[in-house]
């Protein structure tokens, strides 16, 4: 776009230039230019050279300041760099508190870098390959860990996972789980558009007048979650389900954070989130107006995981951090700021009003199954949404 803008505006400047030039040239004819050359040129050149020199100095200083930034960052290099998703490092997310707790424990410096949504962690690793500066990644889930393993960058962990209390058995030897939850559609109970909350996925799909905000399965783990969820329940008929939902989708956001912000702003009736999301409003904001729909067919299970990279220059420290993630203290922090269920007994214990796990089946595909069929599912989703 900028190129075409350039095309038009350079014509504009061509016109302007000609006007300026003509005006300048009108002021001086042949005799004047001789006089001009002999008397004024040297002064003008000196002034112009001084001006160019000033600009050049500014540019060089700018370059130096960038270089200085690099140097500064070298002298202030963190001991552990972690890639995660944006909402994990937000001030209300678990990231800042976890960093504080771990830094106090290890006497080291930890930096968490938010790379938008979880699936972007994978993209980032693909781009950077073995040159990546990350030591640890946090936020890939049971749907994507196999795909990450296939990159050949993830190291085997050395973390004691005997205390895990999970809805399914954890088998990965590279990733460690740090929380889990169930996807659900969240709504505001005061919303007049929702007269009778749906109790089955089928009822939800057949609603006509309500709107939804969803996440892009190509960039968001939650987006991939809904695609997997519908696939798990409806299999071959998934495309038809998407066709029915399509007219009600307000927008497809790249990540969970954006979608939830839009929902809170009143842009839609439902947002795809977690069964635990209303707990945040209830406990952190003392607002009981939010609820999640519970479907008889079951809810898709998401287990979030973390791993150490083979390229990490501090493997011991990275491993210590992974071990720290499943400690009671870290689990309590995660459960009450990431608003997901803990994978082991948290300490301090969860507040009494923290929601119970839904009494419906937990649905999931194995990571290998998702890696194998993901492209087909998303392609089908893309086809329907582009109709």
């Amino acid at each position, binding site marked *: *776009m*900028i*190129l*075409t*803008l*350039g095309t*038009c*505006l*350079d*014509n*504009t*400047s*061509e*016109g*302007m*230039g*000609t006007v*300026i*030039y*003509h*005006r*300048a*040239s009108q002021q001086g004819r*042949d005799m004047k*230019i001789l006089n*001009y*050359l002999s008397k004024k040129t040297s002064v003008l*050149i000196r002034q*112009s050279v001084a*001006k160019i020199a000033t*600009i*050049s100095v*500014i*540019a060089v200083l*700018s*370059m130096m*300041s*960038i*270089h200085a*930034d*690099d140097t500064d*960052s070298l002298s202030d290099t963190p001991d552990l760099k972690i890639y995660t998703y944006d909402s994990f490092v*937000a*001030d209300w997310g678990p990231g800042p508190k976890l960093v504080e707790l771990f830094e106090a424990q290890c006497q080291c410096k930890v930096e968490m*870098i938010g790379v938008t949504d979880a699936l972007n962690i994978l993209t980032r690793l693909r*781009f*950077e390959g073995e*040159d*990546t500066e990350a030591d640890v990644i946090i936020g890939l889930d049971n749907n994507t860990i196999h795909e990450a393993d296939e990159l050949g960058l993830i190291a085997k962990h050395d973390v004691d996972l005997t205390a895990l209390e999970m809805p399914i058995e954890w088998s990965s030897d590279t990733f460690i789980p740090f929380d889990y939850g169930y996807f659900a559609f969240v709504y505001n109970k005061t919303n007049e558009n929702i007269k009778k909350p749906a109790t089955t996925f089928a009822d939800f799909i057949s609603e006509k007048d309500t709107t939804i905000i969803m996440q892009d399965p*190509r960039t968001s783990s939650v987006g991939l979650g809904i695609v997997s969820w519908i696939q798990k329940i409806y299999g071959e008929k998934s495309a038809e389900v998407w066709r029915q939902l399509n007219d009600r*989708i*307000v*927008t*497809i956001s790249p990540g969970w*954070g*954006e979608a939830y912000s839009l929902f809170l702003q009143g842009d839609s009736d439902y947002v795809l989130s977690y069964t635990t999301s209303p707990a945040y409003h209830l406990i952190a904001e003392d607002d009981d107006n939010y609820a999640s729909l519970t479907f008889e067919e079951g809810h898709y299970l998401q287990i979030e995981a973390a791993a150490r990279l083979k390229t990490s220059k501090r493997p011991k420290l990275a491993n210590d951090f992974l071990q720290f993630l499943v400690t009671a203290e870290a689990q309590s922090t995660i459960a009450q700021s990431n608003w997901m269920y803990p994978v082991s007994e948290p300490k301090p214990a969860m507040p009494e009003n923290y929601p119970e796990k839904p009494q419906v089946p937990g649905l999931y595909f194995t990571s290998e199954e998702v890696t194998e069929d993901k*492209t087909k599912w998303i392609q089908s989703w*893309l086809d329907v*949404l*582009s109709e």
Partner: protein
Amino acid sequence: MLPTHSSARVFLSTGGIVSLLFFSLFAVPLLALLLWSQSQNAAEHLNYPLYKILRFTLTQSVLSTGLSLFFGLGIAWSIVHCQSGLRKVAMLSLLLPLVMPVITICLSWNFLLGTQGLAGYFGIKRPYGLSAILSVHVFLNMTLIAWLVLPAWRKAPEGYWRIAQMLNLTGWQLWRQLEWPLVKPYAYRSVALCFLFCFTSFTPVFLLGGSPKYTTFETAIYTAMRVNFDPVYALILGISQFLICTVIIVMILKNSPKQSFDMGRGVIFSNKLIATNWMATILSTVIILICAAPLVTILIQASNTVMSLVEGHLSETGIETLASIPKALQTTMMTIISAMLTCLCLGWVLAAFKLKLTRQGYQKVALTQEMLGGVVYALPALIMGAGWLAVISLTGLWKSSVIIYLAFVSLTTLIGVPVVIRSIVPAYEQLQKQYGKLAEQLGLFGWQKIRKVDWPQLKVILLLSAAYAGVMASGDLGAFILISNEQLQTLPILIQRQMAGYHHQIASLSALTLILTHMVWLLAVYFFSGAWRQQ
């Protein structure tokens, strides 16, 4: 005294080296992208079909162009027929959308027409998508078309208006019999330009599309690179867009009217024979309001952000986001200054080289150089960004801010240099005609001539065009979105990230910073270069 063969040789070889340097700015990233795409093990890719991309790109371009033409002609007509003092204000207001970076217009769309604006007020549930894209494109292009067709009214001799008065031609008849034949050639080129503009649009589609259904070539390249990690498909898309754009450019050049097309002056003299039309006066008022609305909205929202900060109502995340503005401003300023310097030097040498080649009888070489320079217009900025990403990946310099900064400057220069060349070539030719022989008689050649004749005469246009090129290119989002990182981001990138996080109010402060930076820089160069004295 005549120039020696050696000085001519030195000049030609310098010009040749600079030309090569300029072409390497896009050849190296493209080559790197090609190499990189071959080294990737592309297994399965989620590619949005090419025909669907082409269909939507064409649909939105045609609709945007049609609507922009309709409203653009309406604006031009209103300004011409409004003989009150409002006309000057209306004409000045037309410049606002042209100087505001596209991302700031998209941001103000959220406040004005999105869910926080009219759509929310009227209960429109799905404001994103085609309507949102069209509204931004039309806003940008209608003012552009109006600005470009306004000089058409200059072309009519006063006798035309007298005859029109004698024949009692008013309203529609006047438009059909007299005005449209004058406007037609201007409208033709403006439409073609507007079509290209919409065809290669990235920011409005990226930010306001809301669904993969609304995918253009540019956004598909972004998805291929950032989401699917598929440089091969990105290259295919880039080449497709390049070919389509080239066909459009060739068609424009082939079919454009032969008469002179002094677009850009946009100044129409007061013609007392043109009757004041009350409707035009009302429309001119509406135009002023519409053109000023985005800037005013951003001003109000930015003020609210400052007030929230002062009163302590801003969240910690908000303050953290706000703290990124100074660093992004520093990066933007550095990009502008460096790009201005490189644009100035490269543009000047290349323009001089082209003229020298033409004068020395190497018209074909000069034409080839010009055509290669023209390639830049048709290459998607995102592909160049992807090329730099490939350079960074192949060299493994992810951690170096300097290489990313160099990529910023290179991309800005690449976009800006043709602007500088096209601005100074006519002035250079004129200068050569008027003072070339005189300088020869005085024995001024090479560096002496540059110092004593060329620079004093060309410095205003050179500095202004280079400053404008730097500002224009640094305000772009598409070129930089693929290569910026958390440490080094320009203001448009920061605004995009703030918008993605729905920190719209804080983004408005960043947007205001960007707009003010551009305006202050252009004004500074305007006064610094001495242009105001010549005016």
